[in-house]
């Protein structure tokens, strides 16, 4: 049978009552901070509660930026809104600098009754904001992955408080803030994933329906492998008037949705210009003018060639794009063409050069993603090695696919960070002699 306990000692009663009150506040705050995953909202709630519990003049949270290794003011609550804004914009602390820096470095709670007597006090914040700090409680916020930041309760009027309860409260804050971070990251990752899916389907919709095309003695085949982040590669082929055919390859600056949207404009502008102009240089000049007003410095590297499908006469114009490879017999060389800068940057007069192909010749157009692919050690394939690979496989068929396989093999176990596009233009090319 349980014994009845009679509490007669008023002191004990007082202490117990305080504990109960403190625990009430704790459970209340726990419920509130568990109610939101919104980081900004949570930080404000946390600070308001801490300020209320301690009857403080101001409160702030400095978050630890792992990249810069600095503490940055994230939330500051005080009577003057302007003070909060100044703190957020202007003040960062190194680990070890000021009271918050000391707390972050030592990971210990610090209670200072008179900051003027403490050498660690960082006067600069008060100087900038005009706020007067007299006393401070600063506590490290430690999560499962280490330091999150520092919470500061400034000029608390409440002199009697239970340190143990305060520390439990701070631990609650840290866990809630960390959970909000995880949630924010998860939401951001999901948003990016959706954006990349949109970009990827947009990009695919701009490319030709079929990866191969032929006209008279010309055959064209292409391989395009979009990177996970969706780069800005594009290619197109056009059946032009007479015996001519146009082949275009380009690479838009940037990645993701922005690049995919710019590609939409490029493809429609290109098709219009290619229909209106007779020579590759005239098409390039027109596109350069059209893209000169592209936002955010966006530009395009490109190669456009027009080929006579019977005579094998090829006119080519290049705007900052990697050289094509010319395969004639067993010989492979980079086609030397005087290139202008990428399109959309500066006024420029682009030129065309003429090359006459022999029957059986092939031209390989590609984007920089092909030879800038990296392996596990961070080494790039390089243009020279790519030329060597083509030389070694020159007598085999399906070269675009073989090049793509070579790049994938070289970069195995590394995520390909840029699109790969390889377009082969054959003139009277009968396919592989063997292999």
């Amino acid at each position, binding site marked *: 049978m349980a014994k009845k306990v009679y509490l007669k000692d008023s002191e004990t009663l007082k202490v117990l009552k305080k504990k109960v009150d403190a625990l009430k506040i704790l459970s209340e705050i726990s419920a509130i901070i568990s109610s939101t995953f919104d980081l900004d909202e949570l930080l404000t709630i946390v600070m308001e509660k801490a300020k209320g519990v301690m009857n403080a003049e101001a409160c702030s949270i400095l978050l630890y930026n792992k990249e810069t290794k600095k503490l940055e003011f994230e939330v500051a609550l005080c009577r003057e809104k302007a003070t909060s804004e100044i703190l957020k914009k202007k003040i960062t602390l190194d680990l070890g600098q000021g009271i918050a820096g000391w707390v972050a470095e030592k990971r210990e709670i610090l209670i200072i009754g008179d900051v003027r007597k403490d050498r660690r006090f960082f006067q600069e914040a008060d100087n900038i904001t005009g706020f007067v700090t007299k006393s401070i409680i600063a506590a490290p916020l430690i999560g499962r992955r280490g330091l999150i930041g520092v919470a500061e309760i400034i000029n608390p009027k409440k002199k009697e408080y239970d340190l143990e309860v305060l520390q439990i409260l701070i631990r609650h804050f840290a866990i809630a803030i960390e959970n909000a971070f995880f949630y924010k990251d998860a939401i951001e990752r999901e948003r990016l994933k959706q954006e990349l899916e949109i970009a990827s389907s947009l990009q695919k919709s701009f490319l030709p329906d079929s990866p191969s095309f032929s006209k008279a003695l010309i055959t064209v085949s292409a391989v395009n492998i979009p990177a996970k982040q969706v780069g800005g590669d594009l290619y197109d082929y056009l059946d032009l008037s007479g015996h001519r055919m146009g082949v275009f390859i380009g690479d838009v600056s*940037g990645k993701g949705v922005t690049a995919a949207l710019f590609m939409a404009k490029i493809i429609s502008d290109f098709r219009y210009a290619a229909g209106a102009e007779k020579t590759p240089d005239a098409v390039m000049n027109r596109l350069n003018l059209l893209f000169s007003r592209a936002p955010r410095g966006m*530009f395009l590297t490109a190669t456009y060639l027009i080929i006579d499908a019977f005579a094998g006469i090829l006119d080519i114009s290049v705007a900052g794009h990697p050289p094509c490879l010319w395969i004639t017999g067993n010989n492979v060389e980079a086609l030397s063409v005087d290139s202008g800068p990428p399109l959309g940057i500066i006024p420029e007069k682009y030129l065309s050069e003429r090359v006459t192909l022999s029957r059986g010749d092939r031209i390989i157009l590609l984007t920089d993603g092909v030879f800038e692919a990296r392996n596990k050690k961070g080494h790039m394939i390089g243009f020279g090695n790519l030329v060597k690979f083509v030389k070694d496989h020159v007598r085999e068929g399906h070269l675009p696919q073989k090049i793509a396989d070579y790049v994938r093999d070289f970069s195995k176990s590394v995520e390909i960070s840029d699109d790969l596009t390889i377009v082969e233009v054959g003139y009277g090319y009968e396919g592989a002699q063997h292999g």
Partner: protein
Amino acid sequence: MNIHIGDCRGGKVVAISGEIDMYSSPELREQMMNLIGQRISNMLIDFRQVSYIDSSGIATFVEGLKSMKNYGGRLRFFGIPQGIMEIFSFSKLDRVFEIYGNIDDAINS
């Protein structure tokens, strides 16, 4: 990526270290456009500590170049590491940007 902005003979020197890519270029853009908003007449970009740049990073500088040209400002690069210089030459961007070996050559040009 880290950015340090200093003064040098009437111009601003923007020293960048690390990788300039699609993730870091928005911060570079913010700092550059802030200076351009103040109509800085000379901006020098110190590339000595840049380990990598992708087309997003180059586009940021293209935007800076175009914005500065609008009011007669000059954007100059110096100390470009060899690997990055190859990308610039290969893409004919060496015809777009003013590129110098060191800060003195850039300032005295």
